[in-house]
């Protein structure tokens, strides 16, 4: 059944494309009379919609305007930019740090999120399931600054684990100890930040995936069970294929959240130069760089940070577009 004004074609003969002709119809139909009430109300809603266009254009424009100083400095005197080697040399370690932390967060969180979503929708006892779903939603709403606080409190406990990692897996560059064979003694490394990020985005991905799983048509599930499928086979036959595009978009939303997440990283990470190893101090992400330096910044430094923000904006924009493309591609088959 149709649920929206636009998609309703309750008439006969296979829905034709309503776009191919303007709504006013053929020349013979006189122009419809518009009531003043309708005109005012539709204008108000239209203005609100256009405001959104303006706000977004404003975000891009004002960030660009404030980036002007940095761009000028980059052209006239690259050594005046923090680090002394121009803007790109300054920003790329941040970009790499951001991407690494988000990727780790996503890799860790997604399987668990799927597990929790499946557990709460299809495996948990009937009475417990809605409660668990509600708890997950609540956890998704906990502010990131609290996750940061929690991360700081517990980061120290990870040093023993990192020492063990560097001892046995030190040959993998990301677990390598530093020159004197030790790891960060506070535990405030990029790996810790990434793990906290993964815990942060876990409820978000879970709660979106859960909703998708709940929407699996009951009939499809019952059809699978009626064919003699076990519960797992039913999940593989009907639940997972149905939720494929939903899972992809939930993951991408989680990624977008991780990329832009500021506070948890800014609080946990003790930043430093880009290093391959994730268990020693060092590395930095874009959002955290801005948060840690903005309060004291002025003049060119301020402009630099805003430019870095613009870079982050562009990256998240690209990720979101990719997410949309993936969803568009997979959902065609799905539905």
């Amino acid at each position: 059944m149709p649920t929206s004004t636009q998609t309703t074609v309750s008439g006969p003969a296979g829905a034709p494309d309503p776009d191919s002709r303007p709504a006013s119809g053929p020349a013979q139909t006189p122009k419809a009379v518009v009531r003043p009430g309708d005109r005012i109300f539709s204008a108000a809603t239209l203005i609100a919609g256009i405001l959104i266009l303006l706000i977004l254009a404003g975000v891009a424009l004002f960030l660009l305007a404030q980036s002007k100083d940095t761009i000028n400095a980059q052209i006239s005197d690259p050594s005046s930019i923090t680090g002394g080697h121009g803007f790109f040399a300054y920003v790329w370690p941040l970009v790499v740090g951001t991407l690494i932390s988000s990727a780790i967060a996503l890799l860790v969180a997604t399987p668990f999120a799927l597990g929790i979503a499946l557990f709460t929708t299809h495996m948990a006892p009937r009475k417990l399931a809605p409660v668990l779903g509600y708890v997950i939603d609540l956890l998704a709403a906990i502010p990131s600054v609290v996750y940061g606080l929690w991360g700081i409190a517990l980061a120290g406990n990870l040093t023993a684990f990192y020492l063990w990692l560097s001892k046995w897996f030190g040959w993998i560059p990301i677990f390598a100890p530093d020159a004197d064979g030790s790891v960060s003694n506070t535990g405030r490394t990029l790996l810790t930040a990434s793990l906290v990020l993964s815990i942060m985005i876990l409820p978000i991905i879970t709660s979106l995936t859960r909703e998708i799983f709940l929407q699996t048509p009951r009939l499809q599930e019952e059809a699978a069970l009626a064919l003699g499928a076990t519960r797992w086979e039913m999940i593989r036959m009907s639940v997972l294929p149905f939720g494929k595009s939903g899972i992809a978009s939930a993951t991408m939303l989680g990624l977008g959240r991780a990329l832009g997440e500021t506070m948890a990283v800014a609080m946990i990470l003790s930043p430093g130069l880009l290093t391959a190893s994730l268990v020693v101090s060092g590395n930095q992400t874009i959002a955290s760089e801005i948060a840690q330096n903005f309060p004291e910044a002025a003049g060119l430094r301020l402009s630099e940070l805003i430019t870095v923000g613009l870079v982050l904006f562009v990256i998240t924009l690209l990720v979101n577009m990719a997410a949309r493309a993936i969803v568009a591609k997979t959902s065609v088959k799905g539905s």
Partner: protein
Amino acid sequence: MSKQIDIKDLDIFYGDFRAVDGVQMQIKPRSVTAFIGPSGCGKSTVLRTLNRMHEVIPGASVSGEILMDGNNIYGPGVDPVNVRREVGMVFQRANPFPTMSIKENVLAGVRLNNKRMSRSEADELTERALRGANLWNEVKDRLNLPGSGLSGGQQQRLCIARAIAVEPEVLLMDEPCSALDPISTLAIEDLINDLKDKYTVVIVTHNMQQAARVSDKTAFFNIAGTGKPGKLIEFNETSSIFSNPEKEETENYISGRFG
């Protein structure tokens, strides 16, 4: 009350697609006219053009004329909102407003059209409309309860009460019984018989026995194939359509030898 409807050269389009082609018809006041035909033949679409409800669908448009007692409802300066106040409609699925009580549902059309009325007038109108829809005795003790608490058949009669409360001239019914059980269907059919004393009733139905039972005249619509426009094949007294149709197509459909 009650008006005559003349449909002249009516074509209906969805975008560039011609959905219904060249309908000519005269519907007499105080009569029941049934539209029958296979799915997708355009009967519901034609019904919707009688109160310009098709305009809710994006891209839908018509050419031709529909005259209500001689006034073209597609003439210049005609406000569809005013047309719909004259031509009430009942839908396939009962759709009482969920936020309103039974009484508020009945009065919705009047209230939303800004007519002020005193308490006693409102009570009187509620009773009159509900009696008109054969529902008064069943709901008179619970007028302030939500309309969605009624059974399917009662909800549909509530929708009829709501439609006749605005005192229209014409009442359109789009398969009003298709979601109801036989007993509720019977109640609605009885009601339709009563309604034709006051209104011009046009009903779309998939059920040929129903058309035969309730209508004075029957219009048979058909479609030549997917992508072709629907056409009015035959329009005649119900008795002759069902006992002695002029066209072979009609006979095939009536006798179930369709296709």
